[in-house]
C-alpha cells in the first residue's frame, strides 16, 4: 500500500514536468532518474553506476559537470551506490544529459522497472570475495536495466556470506558461496581450519587434530579453504545463493532462499525467467515478495525448476570420522 502511494507520486512528478514547457526533451527523461527536490524547479539527477563503480577518468568529468549544473555544488552517494547531482534546474535537463552522454555516463531510473544492480567488491579485490560481483552487476545492468515490471525490482550481488550488499533485503539477490571438500591425505592435523571456521562447522579430532565436519552448520564462506596451510581443504565449486522477495522501506521483508549454488552462467537466465514470472503474476504496484505470498512460492519454484536445478544444494560426504 505504502509503495503504491509513493510510486503514484513519482508519476505525478513526471506529469507536472510535462506541463513545464517545450524546451525539455522528454525522451531523455523516459527512464526517470530525475527526482524532484523540495526546492522549486530543482531536481536531483541520479547517475547509473552499476556496482557503485566509476572509472577515475569518468569521475573527473562528472565532477566538472556536477560543478557546472549543481546550484549548490554538491553530489550525494545514494544508498544504492549511484551518484546523485543535486540542485539541478529542470530547464537544464537537456544540456546536462547531453554533456553526460558525451562522456558515456547514463542517467539511472525510478519507478516500476529493473533497477541498477548494486554490488560489493567481490573476489576482484576483497579478501572474502568468492564471486565476481562487479562483473555480474555490469552484466545485469546491460541486459536488464529498465525492463518494466509491476513494481520496482532491485537486485544486488554480495561476494560472500558476510553479505555486505544485503541480498536478504532485495527483490532478487545473489550471494557468493563456495563448497569446501576435504582431501585427507594432505592433512597434517594442524587444527587451523577448526579455528578459522566461525560457524562451528569444523571441530578438531582430539587425537589427530584433523577436521570433523558438520555440513548442516556450514554457510559456505570458504574460510577453512583460505586458512588451510596444506591445501587439504579445497573448493569443489563456486556459485550464488539466490534469494527472492526481500525489500526495505516502511514494511521490510526478508528474502527467502530459493537456490543454493547457482553457477555464474545461469544468473542471466534466472533473472530473465523471474522477471517473466513476475510480469505474468504480479499486480501493478506489488513487490515480488508480496506476489509470492499471494500466489505461493511453489508456483514460482515450479516455473524456475529448469534453471534452479543447476544449483541444487550439495550432497555432502562428511569428512573426518
Amino acid at each position, binding site marked *: 500500500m505504502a509503495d503504491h502511494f509513493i510510486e503514484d507520486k513519482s508519476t505525478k512528478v513526471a506529469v507536472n514536468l510535462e506541463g513545464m514547457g517545450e524546451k525539455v526533451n522528454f525522451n531523455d527523461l523516459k527512464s526517470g532518474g530525475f527526482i524532484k527536490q523540495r526546492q522549486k524547479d530543482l531536481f536531483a539527477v541520479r547517475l547509473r553506476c552499476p556496482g557503485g563503480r566509476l572509472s577515475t577518468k569518468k569521475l573527473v568529468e562528472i565532477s566538472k559537470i556536477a560543478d557546472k549544473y549543481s546550484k549548490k555544488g554538491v553530489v550525494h552517494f545514494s544508498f544504492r551506490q549511484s551518484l546523485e547531482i543535486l540542485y539541478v534546474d529542470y530547464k537544464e535537463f537537456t544540456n546536462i544529459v547531453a554533456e553526460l552522454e558525451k562522456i558515456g555516463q547514463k542517467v539511472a531510473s525510478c519507478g516500476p522497472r529493473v533497477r541498477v544492480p548494486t554490488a560489493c567488491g567481490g573476489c576482484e579485490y576483497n579478501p572474502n570475495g568468492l564471486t565476481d560481483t562487479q562483473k555480474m552487476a555490469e552484466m545485469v545492468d546491460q541486459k536488464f536495466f529498465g525492463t518494466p515490471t509491476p513494481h520496482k525490482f532491485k537486485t544486488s550481488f554480495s561476494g560472500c556470506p558476510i553479505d555486505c550488499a544485503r541480498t536478504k533485503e532485495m527483490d532478487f539477490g545473489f550471494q557468493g558461496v563456495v563448497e569446501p571438500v576435504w582431501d585427507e591425505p594432505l592433512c597434517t592435523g*594442524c587444527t587451523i581450519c577448526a579455528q578459522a571456521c566461525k560457524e562451528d562447522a569444523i571441530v578438531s579430532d582430539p587425537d589427530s587434530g584433523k577436521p570433523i565436519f558438520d555440513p548442516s552448520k556450514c554457510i559456505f564462506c570458504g574460510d577453512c579453504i583460505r586458512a588451510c596451510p596444506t591445501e587439504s581443504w579445497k573448493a569443489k565449486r563456486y556459485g550464488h545463493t539466490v534469494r527472492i522477495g526481500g525489500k526495505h522501506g516502511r514494511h521490510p521483508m526478508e528474502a527467502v532462499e530459493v537456490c543454493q549454488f547457482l553457477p555464474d552462467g545461469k544468473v542471466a537466465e534466472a533473472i530473465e525467467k523471474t522477471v517473466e514470472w513476475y510480469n505474468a503474476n504480479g499486480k501493478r504496484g506489488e513487490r515480488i515478495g508480496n506476489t509470492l505470498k499471494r500466489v505461493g512460492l511453489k508456483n514460482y519454484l515450479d516455473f524456475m525448476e529448469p534453471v534452479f536445478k543447476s544449483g541444487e544444494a550439495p550432497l555432502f560426504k562428511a569428512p573426518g570420522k
Partner: protein
Amino acid sequence: MADIKSDALLDLRGVMCPINFVKTKLKLETMEEGEVLELVIDDGEPIQNVPKSIKEEGHKIVEVKKEKEGFFRLKIQKG
C-alpha cells in the same frame, strides 16, 4: 612432522589484527626467498586471519603447532 629449522623468530602474542600481519609482512621482506620465519600468534582472531593473509601473499606455511597456553607456533617459508 620433523621440526623445521627456522631462520628468524617473531613473537606476536598480544598483537592485534591486522598489525600482527603487517609486522609479519615487514619481517618477511627482510628475509631471503626460501628462508623460514617462526611466528608465534594468539588463538582466536589472529589464528583465524593471519594464515589466510600469509597464503594470499604467496608464502608457504610449512609447520603449525598448537601450544597449550592458547597460542600457535607457525613456520612460514618465504615465497
